[in-house]
């Protein structure tokens, strides 16, 4: 027991001593230490900067994507991710989606919690002499908000009655309120007349601010009953249909929708679907593929630089062992065991590398912040990235320091003491 305790004290004092020696050697040869760790610094800096930028992107992307309903399937002629011109033309030539599809879904989709058509066009919205020229005009029904399309800020949303009677009622997006009623609260717009594409509408409500989705302003729109849309805004364009469901019902809902739509659109059994079911998840999937590839590249580049850095460390440690041969001899004469010497040099190489890693991490975060300042890209630093950067460099130091440390430990004390 006593000898075990003594062993512990010895081991811990050897480690403390090793770190102390490592630091004093670092300080003693500042320029060399700096050059030695440069490879590690650059490697870690690159990885940390890229990871920080990707994580920043992730955070901002995920907050943007949440403006699309997570539990909503968007039925459309076009898929969100079109691969190549042929596929686009195929989609372009599909039959439009219309009232028949909408009504079939409303009637038959038992998993749906909300079904809202989305007819879209662009046009000017004016009030007195104020005009917003190209506004997204959405024709929909009372369930639109339940498909994850924001919430009411003032007044009310469109009602069933508005839709049934094709009233000229309009709900304004946050930015339209800002531009048509500058400096006043959203409530100030209620009951006021605005012209949508030249036709008078009465404001019944406004929608809360939603932000941007991939550069698309989600607040520069107005919402009108789709019946009114069809009558007054006349677009005979294909409808999009938003269908919401509880998250656990989504797969069943999709199956259901495919069945309904194929039947209504009379798609022969041997033909592919002539419509698309789009989901927020698809964005995430494509996005993750993209950033996954970026991660891969960053990690690959980082690895290569770290290996180069590691070789630098190995090289300098070999030089250091040679230079300090006599010191090693003295330490051995005074009672240092082989593993004590081994440990000392391992600690030294990993401390050097870890310091390089710390500097690289700091620089990498700095670069990421700079990129965040100068470009629209965001940057986020997570503690795990920092720990990983430093830990990984220490590991590289350990790995590449082991051969020199082993050489140091293997020195014959007699030869080492005699070394000139």
């Amino acid at each position, binding site marked *: 027991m006593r000898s075990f305790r*003594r*062993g512990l*004290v*010895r*081991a811990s*004092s*050897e480690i403390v*001593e090793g770190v102390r020696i490592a630091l*004093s*050697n670092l300080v*003693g040869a500042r320029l060399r230490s700096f050059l030695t760790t440069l490879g590690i610094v650059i490697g870690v800096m690159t990885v940390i900067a890229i990871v920080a930028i990707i994580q920043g992107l992730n955070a901002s992307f995920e907050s943007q994507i949440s403006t699309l309903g997570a539990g909503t399937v968007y039925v459309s002629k076009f898929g969100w991710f079109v691969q190549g011109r042929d596929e686009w033309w195929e989609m372009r030539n599909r039959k439009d989606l219309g009232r028949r599809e909408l009504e079939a879904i409303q009637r038959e989709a038992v998993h749906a919690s909300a079904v809202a058509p989305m007819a879209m066009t662009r046009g000017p919205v004016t009030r007195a002499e104020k005009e917003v020229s190209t506004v997204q005009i959405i024709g929909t029904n009372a369930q639109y908000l339940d498909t994850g399309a924001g919430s009411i800020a003032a007044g009310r949303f469109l009602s069933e009655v508005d839709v049934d009677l094709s009233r000229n009622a309009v709900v304004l997006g946050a930015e339209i309120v800002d531009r048509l009623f500058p400096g006043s609260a959203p409530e100030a717009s209620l009951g006021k007349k605005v012209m949508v594409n030249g036709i008078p509408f009465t404001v019944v409500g406004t929608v809360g601010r939603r932000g941007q989705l991939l550069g698309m302003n989600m607040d520069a729109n107005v919402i009108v009953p789709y019946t009114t849309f069809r009558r007054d805004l006349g677009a005979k364009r294909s409808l999009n249909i938003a269908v919401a469901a509880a998250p656990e019902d989504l797969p069943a809902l999709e199956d259901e929708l495919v069945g309904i739509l194929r039947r209504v659109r009379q798609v022969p059994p041997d033909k592919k679907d002539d419509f698309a079911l789009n989901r927020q998840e698809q964005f995430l999937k494509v996005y993750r593929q993209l950033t996954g590839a970026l991660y891969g590249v960053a990690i690959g580049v980082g690895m290569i630089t770290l290996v180069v850095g590691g070789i630098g460390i190995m090289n300098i440690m070999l030089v250091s062992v040679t230079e300090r041969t*006599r*010191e090693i*001899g*003295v*330490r*051995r*004469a*005074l*009672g*240092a*065991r*082989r*593993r*004590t010497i081994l440990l000392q040099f391992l600690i030294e190489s990993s401390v050097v590398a870890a310091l390089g890693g710390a500097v690289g991490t700091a620089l990498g975060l700095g670069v990421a912040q700079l990129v965040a300042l100068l470009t629209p890209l965001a940057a986020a630093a997570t503690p795990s990235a920092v720990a990983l950067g430093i830990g990984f460099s220490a590991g590289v130091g350990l790995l590449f320091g082991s051969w020199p440390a082993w050489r140091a430990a293997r020195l014959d*004390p*007699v030869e080492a*003491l005699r070394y000139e």
Partner: protein
Amino acid sequence: MDDALILVEDLCRHYVVGGETVRALDGVSFAIERGEWVAIIGQSGSGKSTLMNLIGCLDTPTSGSYRLNGADVQGLADDALADLRNKEIGFVFQTFQLLPRATALANVELPLVYRGMSRRERRARAEAALAAVGLTNRMHHRPNELSGGQRQRVAIARALVGEPSLLLADEPTGNLDTATGEEIIRLFDDLHRRGHTIVLVTHEPRLAARCPRAIRLTDGRVVGDGPGAEVATLGAARAVHG
């Protein structure tokens, strides 16, 4: 004989250099009692350095036996040899062999670090050892801020700090001027009087003559063993005649 500190019997150390066997030590036997001050004297190539390395447990013999403080050194593993050096032997080298970046105090503490002693105890003992060689006011100096004599005193403090049973000095005055060398020898004399066992390896008859006993080596064999003054002149006589 059994209570001798150093008991060397028929010790041989052969090297193979370029296919040829060099008998650096060729059957050396002697005993050194506790409290003795013995010079090992010989020309370069006489085998005295080889003998010092064996006595210092830095090297192992080709054949023969070596007992240090009752323990058989023959066949000990590397770790055990390191522990033995740490506990039983205090080295003093010709070129001092201090760590350049460490203070005098840190240099003296080093053997105690390898013994696994607590920081506080280490510090206290190292300070005492430096005080014993008269360097109380130089503790925090680095070797390059010290004179040659002071450096060798630090080295002696380092050798003494672990309370070893043997002080093993290799040409301790070789890099010092005469006056400083004399100082160091007086320090050894003092340590001897206080009961330390000292083995001093040298090629200088003048130095060996100062020791109560000297062992002369020539070509790896003991050619003289007796009072320092006699063995030293024996060498001188041989040098004159030979």
